[in-house]
């Protein structure tokens, strides 16, 4: 499956977080850091899988179950929202 990037899930992320998120800085447990827009995104499965572009570790999983979006952020060590500091 071909990887897209975080731009492709801007709508889903906005829906979940209630704001523009592609510019949020995501820090992977490997230490790599960058905007969510630059992460690898896989849309072909039952949910959305977001991976670190450097170590390819899973940083985020979003699955929609009966109109509810379940979000797993355990692969992230930090998620910094611009303007929230």
């Amino acid at each position, binding site marked *: *499956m071909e*990887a897209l990037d975080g*731009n492709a899930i*801007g*709508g889903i992320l906005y829906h979940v977080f209630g704001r*523009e998120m*592609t510019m949020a800085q995501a820090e992977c447990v490997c230490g790599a850091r960058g905007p969510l827009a630059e992460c690898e995104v896989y*849309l072909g499965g039952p949910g959305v899988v977001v991976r670190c572009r450097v170590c390819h570790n899973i940083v985020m999983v979003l699955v929609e179950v009966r109109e509810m979006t379940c979000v797993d952020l355990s692969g992230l060590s930090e998620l910094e929202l611009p*303007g929230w500091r």
Partner: protein
Amino acid sequence: MAGAALLGRLIWRVATVTRVVDETPRVRTLELQVPGWPGHVAGQHVDVRLTAEDGYRAERAYSLGSAPGEPPMITVERLEEGEVSPYLTEDVRLGDAFEVRGPIGGYFVWRPNDGGPLFLAAGGSGVVPMRAILRHRRNSMSEVRVRLLYSSRTIEDVIYREELDGEEVVHTLTRAQPPGWTGYARRVDPDLLREVAWSAEDEPLAFVCGPTSFVESVAAGLVELGYAPKRIKTERFGATGER
């Protein structure tokens, strides 16, 4: 918005098709009327949602090809196996309606104050957000230098052909070339980028959009030329993204 948590909801709105333009045999532009449309920034996209009679839903993201201040316009390439693009490119008629949410995106966007010089690289329908940027630059009388490198399979696959004639565009046709073609006739490679892209000394701002393989090779080539990675904005699409 410093320090404040201003949460909003992105709602699905009904979009009505007000104009249809056939760009190429496989690509069509739809101008949309969306009540409550908040306006957009060049480079943003919308999610389109289609609902079947049995309730089955499919969503896809499409870049906006119109400049800020213009009605939202999407340009859609038909993918044979697609769930959404065949409807948008073949079945949809003037006055038909479907749901959209947006505008979406804060990364792959350009505002005149962001400056340049701008180097835009597009593969196939990756040219859609570039048109929004080119139009916005023109409409806002920006004096930022801009050059578009546009890779298409054949001359018939070139989207927005007439409009692009008025811009500084370098075409490459990767699969077939018309008789007498003197332009590039190969995939974008480091040598081609060296000839076409602004010098890294000018600290250009680059936008690269297209299929994943195109984006990765162009972005890597620009880094090789000395472009600052932070000034290379990338957006990938593929069969699953149906951009």
